[in-house]
């Protein structure tokens, strides 16, 4: 059982940071709704949970976009040398070479690479407010609706990026580099 370094990085980026972020979004929406519905007096510990949770989400969002933009994307968009017939190592060129897959790049990748950057902006702002206004959130519907709106939009943007990331990797996987042997065959 083997995996290449490029495949490993796409796993870390998509299945690690990205998928974890998407999963965490549902938790943050639950935490936000609890801030508005719980009747009990809030405690300093309880006030801090949402801030810590959103800070971890912000860290995941930054790790996802930075690893995607600066580690994986250069492998994806690398131009093949002239005369190369096998485009398997050049995903962007491979997608553009066939009419059936062209739009995965022209719509999918073009949207994914930009919309994903809205996520760290939205969630960093949400984390800042959840930390600074931890005690006021329960009594401020306007602050809570701002957080819900931005977290919800970040979920949509991350979902778009995740969906197209998975489909692009299905049609033209980023693969290559050193081979890492996970389990020795018989």
């Amino acid at each position, binding site marked *: 059982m083997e995996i290449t370094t490029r495949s490993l990085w796409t796993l870390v980026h998509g299945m690690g940071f990205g998928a974890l972020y998407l999963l965490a979004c549902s938790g943050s929406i639950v935490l936000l709704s609890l801030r508005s519905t719980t009747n009990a*007096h*809030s405690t300093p510990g309880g006030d801090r949970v949402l801030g810590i949770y959103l800070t971890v989400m912000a860290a995941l969002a930054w790790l996802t*976009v930075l690893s995607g*933009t*600066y580690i994986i*994307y*250069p492998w994806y*968009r*690398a131009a093949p040398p002239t005369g190369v017939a096998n485009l398997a190592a050049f995903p962007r060129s491979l997608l553009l070479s066939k009419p059936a897959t062209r739009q995965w790049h*022209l*719509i999918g990748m*073009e*949207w994914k*690479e*930009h*919309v994903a*950057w*809205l996520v760290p*902006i*939205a969630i*960093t*702002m949400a984390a*800042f*407010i959840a930390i*600074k*206004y931890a*005690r*006021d959130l*329960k*009594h*401020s519907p*306007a*602050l809570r*609706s*701002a957080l819900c*709106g*931005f977290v919800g*939009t970040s979920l*949509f*943007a991350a979902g778009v990026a995740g969906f197209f990331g998975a489909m692009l990797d299905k049609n033209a996987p980023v693969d290559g580099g050193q081979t890492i042997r996970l389990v020795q065959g018989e």
Partner: protein
Amino acid sequence: MSSQTAISQGNVPALPNGSAAAAILSAGIGSLALALFTIVADQSATAKNLLSIYKPTGALSGVSTLAILVWFVVWAVLEWCWRGRNLSLKRINTIAFILLVLSLLATFPLLGDLL
């Protein structure tokens, strides 16, 4: 206790919402900046070249870096102006959310090409 600080739980006074307003509006403006830089890089070969500050990543490196810079600068300026003040959060939320939705739409390639 003034009306600005009266909304609180127990004895803890509420913070002025100026810092929150600055964070919310700057996030909307930063998002719109990302969309605008994306469109500019897509429409102009010169801009695309100028925005390619890290060649292996191409224009995306400049688009994202500049948008983040715009976001931080706007955040810092608004924070400096609004810190300690109470503002109409409802209006700021609406503006920021409109900017965010516009950014989502403008980054979509088929719609971005129409602009």
